[in-house]
């Protein structure tokens, strides 16, 4: 069941991102569905699954973006791993905590991507990009992620954190 859901996400999320989300964007800024999905998978099912799904979703996202073929692959992988680390420390996460974590991670991933993308040209524009793209997108991601989390049935499954506990020394 889970594998089918993940396969569906890999095949369906990026098409939805490039077509349907054009209608919900504000001033050209749209939420990043792959980032939200990666975060929630890592947060709920552990860092390893988050990392793997982050890499796969990031890879597909890179194929349909004008940028390099590995920026999202790496950034989304890291987000999945960090989400797993955060999820491990929270016994009772609420939509508000999910919103806060997702906002921080979205800003972090956006800032990394902005520096990466502009590194060869002009780094002086990075603060402007953070202000005009990263922060609005993070707000969008955090809100949408919190709503999805709130709507999800049976949010936490502690048993699936076995490998993560070992990985992070607990």
């Amino acid at each position: 069941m889970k594998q089918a859901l993940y396969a569906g996400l890999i095949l369906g999320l990026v098409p939805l991102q490039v077509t349907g989300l054009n209608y919900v964007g504000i001033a050209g800024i749209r939420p990043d569905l792959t980032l939200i999905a990666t975060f929630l998978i890592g947060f709920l099912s552990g860092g390893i699954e988050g990392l793997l799904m982050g890499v796969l979703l990031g890879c597909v996202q890179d194929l349909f973006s004008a940028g390099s073929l590995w920026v999202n692959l790496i950034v989304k992988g890291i987000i999945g791993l960090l989400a797993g680390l955060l999820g491990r420390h929270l016994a009772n996460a609420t939509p508000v905590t999910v919103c806060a974590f997702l906002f921080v991670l979205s800003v972090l991933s956006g800032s990394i991507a902005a520096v990466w993308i502009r590194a060869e040209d002009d780094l002086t524009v990075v603060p402007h990009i953070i202000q005009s793209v990263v922060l609005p997108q993070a707000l969008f991601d955090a809100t949408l992620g919190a709503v999805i989390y709130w709507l999800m049935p049976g949010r936490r499954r502690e048993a699936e954190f076995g490998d993560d506990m070992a990985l992070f020394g607990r």
Partner: protein
Amino acid sequence: MLRALSGTTRFILLLLALLLSVIFLLPKQTRSVLQTIGQPISAVVFLPIEALTTLEQSVIGLWQEYVALRHVREDNRQLRRDLDGLQRQNSDLRESAVAAQRLGSLLEFKEQFVPHTVAARVVGRDSTNWYSSVILNKGDRDGIQPEMGVMTSAGIVGRVVKTGPFSSIVLLVTDPHNAITGIIQRSRDEGIVEGTFQGRARIKYLPLLASIRVGDIVVTSGLTGGFPRGIVIGTVLTMQKEEGELFQSAEIAPQADLSKLEEVLIITVPRSLEAQSDVKSK
């Protein structure tokens, strides 16, 4: 710590560490490998994109039909009255159409300026917020390659940066990562057209003595590979000349409406390249 991990997890972590190392140590080689791996994935993921675009078009069509049906009875009466008059006009228009066809073939605009183009449909926008780009439904299999120019009848749109078997990504002229050589049509001063973060374009590196006016048309110079000479890029909105600077620049409003792109033309053989090959063959 690592001993406590299961074999599969250890293998996954090792594989990812290896992948990261390879990406950082051999970026160029990694790009080509990822591109090869990405081709079949891109082909599979493109199917839902096509399906969603078709669905989107159907929903828009249904909505428009519903709106149109609301006043259909009144329209029907009016249309019947109009029909008689239109039938008379129809025979006149047939005559005019034949004349227009004849004049159109005389103009031969397409053959003169852009001889080889492939029509493509816009099926999506960039999957991130980082680039101003669109996804087209034509790719490798239709002969599309990176660096090919893309235009509409109004003006240039951008250039192809990535291709998959059935799709290609076009970086719009308003993206800050795009650079095309352009000239001011009136004064023939040359500069580089780059996108801005405000969704417009800017022609940079114009000589200080260049004469530019608001409303001047900027066209392609034909020096960059993907575009023939003389395709409209946009109109000058404002000029910028700062003290102590060696060059001046001007902000341009793109001629093509890049927010409402539906169909575009991909220039498969730019005129400049074609001219070169003609000279060689002669």
